[in-house]
């Protein structure tokens, strides 16, 4: 036990006593994440505001006399122009200089005013460019918004009793429309994202350090000095795996805390409540999550150390670890798109079971047996891997000495 503690202590000292390491493992990723996310949300907000500010240029053909006045009344700001050259207008829309083209048929007003039963219904055509933000916005507000209002207005002139045409409404006055367990709903939203984030954070946090811990020591020639110390190979392995667990666990706690604290900035002012991800966890849920996360950190650390044992250099180890990372990532993502309730035997599949169990804890759908199975499988696999690593440490070839 003492050997494990010494090795673990040294590996932790390597990270926690080195300012540069602390910065690169804990602070830099958080800063990058916050800066990038804030930048992205700021820029998209700016783009939205810019579209809102823009006064759309709308070309109207054969406009009824009162149409421009009607547009003015609706409060939708736009610059209305007459169509002179249709081909040119088409190019302008394609090029983004004009935003919308509304094509009323000739004699629109007469056709509408003199409508008799059985007459053909007149059609108003609109043209826009969906790949231009301004044009798309103009289409939304004017073509689908203002024109519909104009239709209603004309309809009201034709029909005395508009109510008669409505027949019935759906949910026009029904505040109790949504019936759900808020806790469960919050869990669902968080549950789709959490396994994914946990995977990224726990695995990515451990990747760089883990490869350095074993392959790096081999590469630098420092591993042999440990191997001639009077401690068991398994103590060296466990010391390193535990240190890696602590580092990856600590880094993921830092990341998650930073995400929670800086969430408003990253989402450009929107709070968690706006997004429906506010969630209070019961002590039981927190306990289950914590225990499972420790088990996951143990398994991931064992995987990373195992892969590093087979590599001679850190570079080689990194290239071996990447596919493992991908695999873990894909299994994490899978839970985001699975809607069926997971079958019981899914909980026997290592790594994947942790994703569905994490989700299950948050949505309170996981049973004690399923949770126990997940925990057992994860810890057992981790232990087997540690055994394999210890065996590999015995091998002269693996240790390259």
């Amino acid at each position, binding site marked *: 036990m*003492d050997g494990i503690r010494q090795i673990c202590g040294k590996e932790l*000292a*390597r990270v926690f006593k080195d300012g540069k390491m602390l910065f690169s493992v804990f602070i830099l990723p958080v800063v990058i994440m916050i800066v990038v996310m804030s930048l992205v949300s700021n820029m998209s907000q700016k783009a939205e505001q810019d579209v809102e500010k823009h006064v759309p240029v709308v070309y109207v053909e054969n406009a009824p006399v009162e149409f421009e006045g009607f547009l003015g009344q609706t409060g939708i700001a736009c610059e209305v122009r007459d169509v002179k050259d249709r081909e040119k207008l088409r190019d302008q829309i394609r090029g983004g200089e004009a935003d919308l083209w509304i094509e009323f048929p000739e004699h629109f007003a007469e056709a509408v005013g003199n409508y008799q039963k059985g007459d053909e219904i007149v059609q108003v055509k609109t043209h826009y460019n969906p790949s231009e933000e301004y044009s798309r916005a103009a289409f939304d507000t004017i073509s689908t918004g203002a024109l519909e209002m104009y239709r209603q207005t004309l309809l009201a002139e034709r029909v005395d009793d508009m109510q008669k045409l409505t027949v019935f409404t759906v949910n026009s006055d029904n505040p109790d429309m949504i019936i759900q367990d808020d806790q469960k709903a919050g869990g669902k939203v968080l549950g789709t994202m959490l396994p994914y984030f946990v995977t990224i954070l726990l695995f990515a946090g451990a990747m760089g350090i883990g490869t350095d811990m074993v392959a790096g020591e081999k590469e*630098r020639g420092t591993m042999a*000095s440990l191997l001639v110390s009077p401690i068991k190979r398994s103590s060296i392995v466990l010391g390193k795996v535990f240190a890696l667990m602590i580092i990856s666990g600590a880094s993921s706690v830092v990341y998650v805390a930073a995400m929670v604290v800086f969430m408003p900035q990253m989402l450009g002012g929107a709070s968690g409540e706006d997004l429906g991800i506010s969630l209070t966890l019961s002590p039981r849920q927190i306990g289950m999550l914590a225990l499972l996360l420790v088990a996951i950190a143990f398994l991931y650390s064992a995987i990373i150390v195992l892969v590093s044992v087979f590599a001679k250099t850190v570079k080689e180890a990194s290239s071996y670890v990447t596919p493992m990372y991908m695999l873990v990532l894909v299994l994490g993502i899978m839970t985001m798109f699975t809607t069926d309730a997971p079958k019981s035997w899914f909980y026997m599949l290592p790594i994947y079971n942790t994703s569905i169990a994490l989700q299950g804890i948050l949505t309170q759908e996981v049973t004690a047996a399923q949770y126990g199975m997940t925990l057992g499988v994860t810890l057992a696999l981790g232990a087997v891997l540690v055994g394999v690593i210890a065996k590999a440490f015995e091998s002269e070839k693996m240790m390259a*000495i």
Partner: protein
Amino acid sequence: MIEINNLTKIYKLNKKQMKESKTTNPLKTAVDDLSLRAVPGEIYGLLGPNGAGKTTTLRCISTIIRPTKGEIYVAGHEVQKEPEQVREKIGFLTGDIKLDPQFSVDYMFDFFGRLHHVPEEKLKARKEELFEYFGIKDFAHKKIKELSTGMGQKAAIAVCLVHDPDIVIFDEPTNGLDVVTARGVTDYLKKLRNEGKLVIISTHIMSEAEKICDRIGVIIDGQKVAEGRLEEILQETGAQDLEDAFFELYRERKGEAL
């Protein structure tokens, strides 16, 4: 005491290694049926050319690699059966074993001291003694990566002796050291011997072997071809000095091809 009985170490070569050594045989015998005994209070030198099997022998003694055949007893413990006990008794140093460049000499000394279960009080005393002897005090707080080669070697020697081992195994102890530092190291080895410790070194430097070794085992192609005190080897070969004696043995072994 170190007792080696019929040690054989055969390496399996991979294709690349086979190509490098221009052979089609995937097995390479590094040490071939070697037996020797070294006792406390002596410096035993393994003398031989590069690739003779000196380092392999020392690594087998240190439990870093496993013998293919034969037994090695270190202070009564067999290396394959009780490797931890063997490692407890020895201090092993080679140029390939390095200290973690990220840590200070101080930290490394304490770390290995604790791994060897050295009590805190004794650890302090050992640090004082060894740092003083090797002149490490001035750079004890520096990280290993900031040290010069000589400083690094001194630090490595001090760290490997932290637990005051009864048996000290040095692979090419003065390799890469300047004359002054090399002298310091060999003097320290003599001091250890005088304190009743067993020191076993490997070297290809004849003068070094002549000066410091009490007994010498000459190894060529993994086999021991001569063993004894310097005078005994000179007498056996009829040579004037160790270098001549070595070439005499080498010629005998390799034929007239030399």
